[in-house]
Every structure is written in C-alpha cells, then in structure tokens.
C-alpha cells in the first residue's frame, strides 16, 4: 500500500514541478523590458565591491576582501539572480529586435550570455564548496571571478544609462 502512494506522490511532485517550470518559461517569454529591469535585486547592493563600483570596471581588492564585501553567500546569491536577469535581457534582444533595424551582432549577445552563465556557474561552484568546506581559498577565488564579471557588466550598464537614459539612472544605481 505504501509503494503505490509513494509512486503517486513522486509523479504528482513531478507534474507540479513541470507545470511551474512551464508557467515561468511562458512568463519569461512575454515579459516587458521594464519588468526585466524591475527584477534586479534591490535588497542587496554590490557597491561595496569596489570604491568606484558602477563607474569603473574591474576589482582591485584581494579575494579575501571581496569575500567579506560580498557578505558571503548572501551576496553571491544576489549576483546569481541578477545574472539570470542579464540572460533574459539577451533573450529579449534576440526576440524583439526590429527586422528593419541594424541587427545586434550575434557575437555580442553570445558573449553576454556566456558571461552571465559563467557568473552563475562560478556562484554555484562557490556555494557548493562553501556548503562543504566553508570559506576556503577555492570558494573565494570563484566568488572573486563572479564578482569581477558582475562589476564589469554593471559598470558598462551604468555608462550606457548615463549616455542614453539618464532619467532612469538614479533608479538603476539605487537598485544595484
């Protein structure tokens, strides 16, 4: 009697997971640009990463310092979620670029995706290592890599908003 109940429970859980995934994918495919910007995590700020965060690329601090400034796994998780938003922005661009206009160089979109995925992988590896062995050198190196890629992307985003959408720049700076 227990086995059939267990089987039904497993299949029901799979069905629920499948339904949830499908809904999230559908929502992702129809969301607006503003909704995407609004998904950037605002409860954690990356401004501690460097003295000129958002205005200059690259990190000059050591891996130990960056780990502290990240606030450990909390900051890593925020970076992980924001990297997803960056990937979705790349998808948005690919889907909605007007047919008559200058198409975006596929290499740029690819690099953007590749960087965002690299950030997610680095964060996942760092979090997995952290769960097993706390903050070792390997964890900090992976965290540094993710933070460095992230700060580079954020700095380029700020420069662009400053040039082309100064009105929304304060909101963006506050969100980051």
């Amino acid at each position: 009697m227990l086995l059939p109940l267990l089987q039904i429970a497993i299949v029901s859980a799979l069905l629920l997971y499948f339904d949830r995934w499908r809904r999230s994918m559908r929502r992702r495919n129809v969301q607006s640009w503003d909704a995407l910007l609004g998904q950037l995590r605002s409860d954690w700020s990356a401004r501690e990463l460097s003295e000129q965060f958002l205005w200059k690329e690259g990190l000059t601090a050591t891996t130990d310092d960056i780990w502290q400034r990240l606030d450990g796994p909390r900051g890593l998780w925020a970076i992980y979620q924001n990297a997803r938003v960056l990937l979705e922005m790349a998808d948005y661009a690919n889907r909605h670029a007007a047919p008559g206009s200058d198409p975006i160089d596929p290499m740029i979109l690819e690099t953007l995706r590749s960087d965002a995925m690299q950030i997610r992988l680095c964060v996942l590896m760092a979090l997995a290592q952290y769960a097993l062995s706390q903050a070792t050198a390997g964890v900090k190196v992976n965290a540094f890599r993710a933070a460095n890629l992230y700060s580079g992307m954020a700095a380029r985003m700020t420069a662009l908003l400053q040039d082309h959408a100064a009105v929304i720049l304060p909101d963006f700076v506050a969100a980051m």
Partner: protein
Amino acid sequence: MTLDSKLTVALSVGETIVLTLLIWRGIWRNLPIFSAYLCWSLVTDLAGLYLQVSNTPNYFVFYAIQTIVDAVIMFAVLVELGWSVLRPVRSSLPRGSLLGLVILVAIAGGVIWPFASLSIPPDLTKQAVAFVHIDQTFIILRVVCFLVMVGFSQLLSIGWRDRELQIATGLGIYSMVSLLVALFSSHLTSVEEIHRYHEAITYSYLCTLAYWVLSFAAKEYQRKEFSPQMQQFLVLMGGGSRTGSIALTDLPSERRGKKD
C-alpha cells in the same frame, strides 16, 4: 469499427494536421527529427489500422517492433530539442558535446533497465514480460531525460523559445501520463485491464496533438518594443565583457601569491 480503430483514425487525422502546420509554418526546418517522428507515427498508425481491420495474427510482433523504434526516435527528438535549446550557447560548449549527450542518455538507459523490471505486472507471458520491460524502461528514461533537460536549463537560466516550449509541453504531458499508466499497470493482473489502462496513453497523445494544432496554428509571439537605446545598452554590456574575462586570468590573490 472497434474503439481502438476509431482512436487510431483520430490519431492519424491529428498527426496529418500537425504535420501540415509544421510545413506551413516552416517549423520543420528547425526541428526535422520531430517532424520525422510525426511522419513515422502517421505511417505506423495507418499500418496498425490496416492490421487491426484485416485481423492479421502478427499484430503483436508489429506492435512490439513499432514501440521500440518509436522510443528510439523519441530519444532523438529529445536530443534535438535539447540541442535546439542550447543553440545560443552552442559555440561555448566543448567539441563532441552532442555525442556526449547521446552517451549519457544511453548510460541512463542502462541504469534504469534493472529498476524498470520491478514494476512489471505478474502473470504475463515471457514475450509480454520482455515487451513491457522495454516499454517501461523507455517511459522512465524519457521522463528522466526530460526532467534533466528542464532542471539544467533552469539552473543556467537558459530560455526556451515558444515553439520549443510548446513541443516540450506536449511531450511532457504525454510522458507523465505514460509513467502514471506504467505505475498503475504494475498492480493489475489481467491483460484486459492493462489494455484499458494503456488506452489512457492514447488519449493523452490525442490531447497532445490537439494542443499542438492550437499552438502551431497561432503565430509564435508578438514583437515588443526594442529601442535603439536598449540595443546599445546590450552592445555596450556585451562588447566590453571580453576584456573582463581576460583580466580574470590575473587575479589579485594570484599576483600576491607570485610576489610571495
């Protein structure tokens, strides 16, 4: 005409409409194996209908062979779907990734094979046991492959385009119903009862075909605003990221280590 024959006619009609839409919308160019799978299903359904009507004694052999070939093509469809989802990041993947994907699926099949025998209904003939064993292995493997694909794409936040999502939804529903039927069948004893439960799989496939007809008949998506500012935003973000990646090879901690 028996219920089975009526269902087969309904499936053939559904498959013909879906195939027509695949060709009309040009979807077959991106997903040729999926289109070939539907062609195969249509041909086997028509052949099966002929054998049912003519009461040929070799129907069971035909059904067994058809199920195995069907499962193999279905895997090719899953690999194609996975490869299509990975399209934006394909160039970043190592060489031989596709082959690796196929080998992983084969290994998963080998692992599932012994477990699938646990849910075979008792009191079946030797021939039927072999057939059910193969069938259930493929059903479980299909669900596992599907879940791995979904989980992996969610982990890395890889997006699915509308058509891929529609095909995945249809296949997902069909696979889940097949799994449920396989689980419930393991507690049945008579062949008639098992057959009645297996009709649920046919109904689920019919629902899947109806869903595909409705989905493929509609346009893929409505284009949204994508201003030049948005475009430049992405160009700037993507353009400079190479420099950042190169700089990573010279981490401050490594530099410090070299000095020490």
